[in-house]
């Protein structure tokens, strides 16, 4: 279950604290911002404002003795914002690629994002595929099994989600948190020299390697 206890830097006495950068990608209006809003604030708006550039939010989840803090970049979906996307996924340890189960085109677009991430993002990035708007099952155009099969072939986590009903929203973030490596330095520069332009180091770099001591 997500909580917002605002975990701070560990002092060695409490459990481990890890911080990860996560990016959401996917076609316009598939529900990226709604997933984040549900996960971070537990809210849902029928008409979520379109995201321009990107929005930044954080949320913390607890996993056994580990506290995982997600730094979330929620990006704009329109195709022409594509050239800005590398700025957000470079240095990310996790990505959620979102499509809308009622729209086949958005599934195709999701596959393109997965390919791009596999080619250009950090080699160890954990990618999850989210088939959102699962509450609209009567308008379904993308079969669950088709997406599941694709996810398995490509080594992705996969869940159908609904930001509206909250179905699987916390679960997908938790599944990512579980899969992320927690015993090594994972932020920024540890993820190879890609992305010369930015995000080589983040806050936690101030104390290198302390992510999960």
């Amino acid at each position, binding site marked *: 279950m997500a909580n917002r206890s605002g975990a701070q830097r560990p002092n060695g006495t409490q459990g481990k604290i890890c911080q990860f950068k996560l990016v959401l990608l996917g076609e316009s209006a598939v529900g990226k911002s709604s997933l984040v809003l549900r996960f971070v604030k537990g809210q849902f708006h029928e008409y979520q404002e*379109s995201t*321009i550039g990107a929005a930044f939010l954080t949320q913390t989840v607890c996993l056994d003795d580990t506290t995982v803090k997600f730094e979330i970049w929620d990006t704009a979906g*329109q195709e022409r914002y594509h*050239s*800005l996307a590398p700025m957000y996924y470079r240095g990310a340890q996790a990505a959620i690629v979102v499509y809308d189960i009622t729209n086949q085109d958005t599934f195709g677009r999701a596959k393109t994002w997965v390919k791009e991430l596999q080619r250009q993002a950090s080699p160890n990035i954990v990618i999850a595929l989210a088939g959102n708007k699962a509450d609209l099952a009567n308008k379904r155009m993308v079969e669950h099994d088709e997406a599941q099969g694709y996810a398995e072939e490509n080594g992705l986590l996969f869940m159908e989600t609904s930001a509206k009903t909250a179905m699987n929203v916390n679960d997908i973030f938790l599944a990512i948190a579980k899969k992320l490596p927690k015993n090594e330095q994972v932020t920024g520069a540890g993820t190879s020299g890609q992305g010369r332009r930015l995000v080589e180091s983040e*806050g936690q770099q101030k104390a290198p390697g302390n992510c999960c001591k």
Partner: protein
Amino acid sequence: MARSCFSKVDEYGFERPDDFDYETYEDFMSQYLIVLAKRAKKWAELIGEGKSLKRNLTVKRYVRKGIPGEHRGLVWLTVSGAEALRDEWGSDFYQKLLNGPMNQDIVDIVRTDLPRTFPDNIFFSAGENHQQQLYNILVAYAHDNHEVGYCQGLNYIAGLLLLVTKSEDTTFWLLKVLVERIFPNYYTRTMDGVITDIDVLDELIRLKIPEVHRHVASVGLPWAVITTKWFICLFAEVLPIETVLRIWDCLFYEGSKIIFRVCLTLVKRNQGSILQCKDFSSLAECFKEITRDSLVIECHDFMQSIFKVPGSLPLNLIVKLRTRLAQQRQNQMRSDRVWTWHIP
């Protein structure tokens, strides 16, 4: 604090957020109403009784001090050249576009964004005709300018123009002049203009506020991440509405360099708090905070400061930087392509 005398909905129809700071706002408004009354009188003298408005130093000075709400549409049209553009293309041009054939892809993409534009504004919530008017404007523009089509962000700009002018036709021409003359290449498919101008801002901050530039670089937050929405939305949905409109007053008269003045002022006047942020998250939060604190709510003072705080900012410097940085980016992209090509 007692309940405010200000309603939950502002004069443009936006619902004030739950955490709206009525106290700060009331303090500000008690002073600003006096300014508004004074400006209204001055403007009435300037444009009253059939006097025509022309671009000159007096008008420029007046514009910097704020155009009264009731005159905004008209003054924006005149000083930006949008009116001349309309005369050139014909006054029925907009209507003709609306009567022309429509591309289904454009219709669909605009329709998707309609209910997602200002959902917390009473004029845009379901059933109100601003949604239909906004649809008309965006679709007409996308068919007029194929190079731009529909770019997300234009919905907020056109939406706000519509709230101010209450006229589809006026909004269309103001949108056209913004997109094609004031900010060329911002909203095209590659958005090169925006990317270049963000690089220009980066360089201006390096030159003018080097301490902040070094600090933000060391934290690792790119200026593009911070400012993309500032540039694309021209501060709509970023700064308080009255401040945005005051900025637009100057934009329509003086052009795109006003955006740099606003960005530099925001950064410079907040450099203390920016320098205190030691990590990525707190810095990202800080940049959200500085777009809604009392410094920007007090729009009159803020607008005076944009002409002082950043210091001299000649247009030819911006033009030179644009040329140089766009060229650098082109070269970089070319070498990246070669580089990628050799990676197995």
